[in-house]
């Protein structure tokens, strides 16, 4: 067996053992990983967060959703103690947040950035040292291997493409084996191949028992990956719970999906229409008979296909955002 394969195997064993030991050492508690209560924050006269409360359970992928400017990043910064809230509290593992908890959180901010004039290794080592990682070199090799950039270890960061730098940044968020990962728009700017790599890493980490907070406005990703979500708009909670619960709440407002030819015109009983030219999603008013809608549709367009389904998270998001 080649020596480097042996080394990798030994490293994986070591890493697994270390994770087990670390898991045993870290306190076991029934408390939520994160408990946010009555969070309020204003900048000047503008209220950014308005009495927001939620909690995050251990090992779940928690979606923090909302339109741009809703207050998602402000929540994250308060959780990380980068910003102070005006009112409310943040508890982690049942305790009031303090600086020591930062070592248990990995953070990928929305605005990506790395030191451009140093090597990938130097950059990751600096971040690892700031997180008090005991054997940073091994962790750096492990994560560079995982994101497929081990050959770029000694290269200057500025020599890497934007996508590569994004993966380096992702590695920097995981380098210290955190319990909680806060990922702010992790798929933003990634091509489909790298999106899959990032998604697979997130799922691996979830299987390892890590808690992931996924802040995004890409509803399709959130719908596929999140166990529970919190949707905020203008700093207020508008949706909160498991996806099943939320979708059940909107089951009375089904969506009709149609593929058609012709000009789609407004139809009675349809509250919201997402029209793409040849494809449309029609939100039906509560109690509307889909047969009536179909009949009206066929008067104006030639139908190719139709389907009734529960509203997508995207549809719910748009509806809720518009109402708010």
């Amino acid at each position, binding site marked *: 067996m080649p020596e480097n394969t042996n080394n990798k195997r030994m490293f994986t064993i070591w890493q697994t053992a270390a994770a087990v030991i670390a898991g045993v050492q870290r306190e076991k508690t029934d408390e939520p990983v994160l408990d946010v209560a009555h969070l309020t924050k204003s900048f000047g006269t503008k209220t950014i967060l308005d009495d927001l409360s939620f909690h995050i359970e251990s090992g779940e992928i928690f979606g923090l959703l909302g339109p741009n400017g809703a207050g998602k990043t402000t929540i994250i*910064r308060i959780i990380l*103690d980068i910003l102070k809230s005006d009112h409310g509290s943040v508890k982690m593992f049942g305790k009031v947040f303090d600086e020591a908890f930062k070592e248990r*959180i990995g953070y990928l901010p929305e605005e990506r*950035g*790395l*030191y451009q004039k*140093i090597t990938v290794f130097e950059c990751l080592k600096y971040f690892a040292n*700031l997180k008090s990682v005991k054997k940073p070199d091994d962790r750096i090799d492990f994560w560079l291997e995982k994101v497929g950039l081990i050959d770029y270890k000694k290269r200057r960061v500025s020599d890497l493409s934007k996508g590569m730098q994004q993966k380096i940044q992702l590695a920097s968020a995981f380098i210290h084996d955190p319990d909680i990962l806060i990922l702010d728009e992790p798929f933003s700017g990634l091509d489909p191949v790298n999106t899959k790599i990032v998604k697979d890493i997130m799922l691996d980490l979830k299987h390892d028992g890590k808690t992931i907070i996924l802040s995004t406005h890409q509803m399709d990703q959130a719908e596929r990956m999140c166990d529970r979500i919190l949707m905020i708009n203008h700093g207020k909670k508008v949706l909160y719970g498991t996806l099943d619960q939320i979708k059940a709440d909107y089951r009375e407002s089904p969506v009709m999906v149609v593929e058609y030819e012709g000009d789609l015109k407004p139809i009675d009983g349809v509250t919201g229409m997402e029209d793409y030219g040849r494809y449309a999603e029609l939100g039906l008013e509560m109690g509307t008979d889909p047969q009536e809608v179909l009949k009206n549709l066929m008067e104006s367009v030639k139908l190719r296909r139709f389907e009734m389904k529960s509203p997508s998270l995207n549809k719910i998001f748009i509806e809720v955002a518009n109402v708010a």
Partner: protein
Amino acid sequence: MLPKTLVVAKHEFLATVKTKGFILTLILPFIILLPVMFTSGYVMQIATDSPRNIGFVDETGILQPDGIFTRFEDIGDAENALLNGEINSFITIPPDYLKTGRVFLYRTGGFFGSAPTGLIEAFLIDNLLRDSDVDETLSDRIRCPVDMEQITLNEKGEVEEKQAVQFLIPYALAILMVLSIMTTSGYLMQGIVAEKENKTVEILLSSLSPDELLTGKLMGFGSAGLLQICVWICSGMLVVSLTSLAGIFQEIQISLILILAIPYFTLGYLLFAGSMACVAAPASTMKDAQQGAMVFTMLAILPIMLLGVIIAAPDSTVARVLTYVPYTAPATTLMRITLTGIPVYEITASLLILTISVTVVIRLSARIFRNAILMSGKKIRIRDIPVYLKR
């Protein structure tokens, strides 16, 4: 495991000392001074050796040759001797010399050689006095009428003796102090703005507190600045010890200057760096930060602008006030020490005021840094500062 503040300090120190700009500022004194040291001896030799063999063509008949001056019968012979390197230069004395005083000096080109005017004047005076009735004492005075010594009185009427070159020392010290403080605090400002521009500051703040980050930066950049000033002082002392300037330093309280240079540099650096952090944290670009820092740059160079006043009257009210003003104290105090005996109470008061100012400025800068570091896309406005302080 290093505390996080030291991790930041180490990172900033190494990042700074590895830059080309920093390395250049370290070796620049050597680049400038070493060639001067090695060539100064050669220049001196040329300047002193070259006039030792001078020819003359005398059409008045009053001049006699001596150990330096050789007689030539005509210009042609003298020219040949000059071109063959037998003499360094020659003069011709026309028949109407006694009436006009006019002589002609012939010499070959040469970068370092200077006209041996003094030697020629002394040679002519010796020959003119040779057959006169003037006594020896008077003839000595005619040869050397002035041996001037400058005497400066302080405000109390006490005599202070100084050599002209000594005035260069306060000037050099002021420049050195201002340059190193401004360069080092400039590095800090650049570092803060660069991390805002490359968006790394938010990652850093997810690992440590803003206060730890600012403290680490102050320590890291400060250490780089201290290294810079130590290298400059050591290289300066090396140059001095190898040249004739050593004697001048014996008359100055050099040990006192060196003892005070470290606290004044450290406090001065913290004051300016803290002030720079106040303008760098809310700034979105380096240009914005530099505009905001202009006022501190002006304060830093004020002692240099008022150098003439300080040198002329180091115990004047202006010089004393500048000693107590925190932003001008480091350069002013070090200048004054070389020029006058500053009372201990003035130095103590100056250091005390500086320490209190540093404490206040660092606290303010930490607060502004904490509240404004994630701001972007806004110009620095003075009216926003209370807002940053309140948050």
